[in-house]
């Protein structure tokens, strides 16, 4: 890949800023995996075969973009034809989408930009409604890398509709640091399902999502974490025009040493937008879920309706859930709320189900399944929905 000037320029700007602020450490946030380790000296990158099979989630009729280190693996991809551009490389548009982020105050984002070798760009033309989701999967060419840092730009034109599934990157011993930039034009509707699965053999997985919403647009995001390993997800939505609507959901089913650090943030620059951050976790073993949810409402962004909720079920004594909601409101007429709770399954609920003949184990499993069902049901893609339900709801952690 020969780099042309727009990318070089972006990279050097991001790199300068990165030198100033560095990668996030415990001084910035409770995320500790960067600070704890010196990644430059990690030598043993093993390439264990993973038990994640993306194909089981992808239906025959759905689109697939298989991304390798140096571009799209055309042979294994199944690209949409009409009204959608899928390309790897660089262009003016990339520069527009990424230039703001070169001044990000997040070292992970800066690092991804400063070291990118190209950008996967998915552009859905105005008025185009994709009938099938697009899956973004990553091939084996990343396996020799220590840092795997894909950068993806998804742009939906006016009134376009598309759903995208971001599959995990399977690398034992490596560090994943992905960046996905989304822009949703007027009246467009975007949906992203971020699969955060089988990350345990990686050093850690960091994924940053940045979405910008135009007038009357919609953006729905769901992260599903399972066998997640050490994860940092940072999802930020910016409302730039009124009547936009965004719901960010996360379903974390964690066990053993899984530790998911989830940051979601909604920035309301203008009023009359609707935002929800809904995070549910089921925690077993010594797993940890840490939720930082933020709402920022700018001065004058009246009639904003933005709230967050974080519910955690602890199934073991050693699991932990930490919740840090934050509301910063500078407008007057705003509906904003946050709620968080941590607890166990309710004995009264279990007894009620048992008193109707349902055995205890089944009752408990049913309660856990119901806990995450609403979130999974929100997925519009039937294939992904049913595969995730199967995986998360009938998994060992949830019972049977």
């Amino acid at each position: 890949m020969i780099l042309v000037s727009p990318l070089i320029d972006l990279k050097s700007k991001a790199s300068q800023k990165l030198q100033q602020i560095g990668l996030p450490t415990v001084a910035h946030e409770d995320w500790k995996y960067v600070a704890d380790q010196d990644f430059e000296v990690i030598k043993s990158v093993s390439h264990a075969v993973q038990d994640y099979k993306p194909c089981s989630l992808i239906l025959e009729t759905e689109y697939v973009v298989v991304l390798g280190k140096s571009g799209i693996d055309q042979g294994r991809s199944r690209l949409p034809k009409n009204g959608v551009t899928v390309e790897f490389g660089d262009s003016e548009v990339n520069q527009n989408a990424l230039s703001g982020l070169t001044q990000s105050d997040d070292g992970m984002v800066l690092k991804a930009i400063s070291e990118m070798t190209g950008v996967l760009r998915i552009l859905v033309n105005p008025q185009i409604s994709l009938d099938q989701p697009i899956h973004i999967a990553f091939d084996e060419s990343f396996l020799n890398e220590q840092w795997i840092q894909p950068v993806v730009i998804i742009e939906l034109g006016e009134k376009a509709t598309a759903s995208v599934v971001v599959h995990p990157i399977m690398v034992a011993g490596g560090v994943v640091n992905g960046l996905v930039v989304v822009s949703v034009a007027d009246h467009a509707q975007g949906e992203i399902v971020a699969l955060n699965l089988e990350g345990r053999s990686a050093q850690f997985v960091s994924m940053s999502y940045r979405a910008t919403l135009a007038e009357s647009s919609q953006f729905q995001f769901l992260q599903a974490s399972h066998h997640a390993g050490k994860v940092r997800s940072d999802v930020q939505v910016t409302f730039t025009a009124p009547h936009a609507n965004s719901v960010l959901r996360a379903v974390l089913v964690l066990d053993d040493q899984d530790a998911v650090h989830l940051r979601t943030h909604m920035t309301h620059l203008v009023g009359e937008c609707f935002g929800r951050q809904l995070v549910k976790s089921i925690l077993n073993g010594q797993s940890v879920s840490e939720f930082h949810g933020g709402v920022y409402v700018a001065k004058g962004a009246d009639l904003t309706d933005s709230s967050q909720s974080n519910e955690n079920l602890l199934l073991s004594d050693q699991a932990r859930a930490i919740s840090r909601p934050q509301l910063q409101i500078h407008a007057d007429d705003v509906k904003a709320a946050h709620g968080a709770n941590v607890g166990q399954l309710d004995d009264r609920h279990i007894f009620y189900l048992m008193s109707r003949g349902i055995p205890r184990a089944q009752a408990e499993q049913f309660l856990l399944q119901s806990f995450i069902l609403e979130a999974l049901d929100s997925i519009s893609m039937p294939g992904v929905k049913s595969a995730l339900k199967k995986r998360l709801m009938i998994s060992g952690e949830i019972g049977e």
Partner: protein
Amino acid sequence: MVSIQELYAEIEGKSILKGLSLDVKPGEVHAIMGPNGSGKSTLGKILAGHPDYEVTSGSVTFDGGNLLDMDADERARNGVFMAFQYPVEIPGVNNASFLRMSYNAKRKHLGLPEVDPFEFELLLQKQSKLLKLGEGLLDRSVNDGFSGGEKKRNEILQMMLLEPKLVILDETDSGLDIDALRIVAESVNRFKSPDRSFLVITHYQRLLDYIVPDVVHVLANGKIVKTGDHLLVRELEERGYDWLTGAIPSEVGG
């Protein structure tokens, strides 16, 4: 059907049932009345297998077996059903899915295959119509945000689906409007059979005008203090409980 002998039970160290005995034969309807806090719901929940109550002595025989040996779910599958005074709300748990799971648990116990979801849907619709239970309630979370009367009707719906042998109705009439009371009572009356028994806990005569009991008991301070026929209901309605509990009636005026 069920035979309770000298039952003593406590919760958190507080003794509630103090030597209660009761014998209900197949096909009989027994009413249980008594002052607030006397232990009526406790008795029902102990029969249903609520784990918070500890039986310290006495026995309960159900259908020839030892009821107290069974967990709540096993009792339910074997035919014990309690319509609760305060049905618990379970947010996020779909009512129809819950009802189907419960129905299937019973079918499995009977050695029958799982019900076809579509057939079950039809069955639910039919039964809810009989109870004038809005169909919207089936798609909602179990009892979540249901009105008092809707909760009680949802309990009766479960009773009809599970076809129990021993039905305990704990103040099912409270919270029901006049029409709903009649509808529920009619459902219960239709549901009566020679091999099914009822324990009807209530404070009011009105329900017992519809569901006429064979035997009426007064439970006070953890024991049955009086047993009679349905005429006892009217007497209680007129005289209250003080003459049975030995309490001195409060002076009126001064």
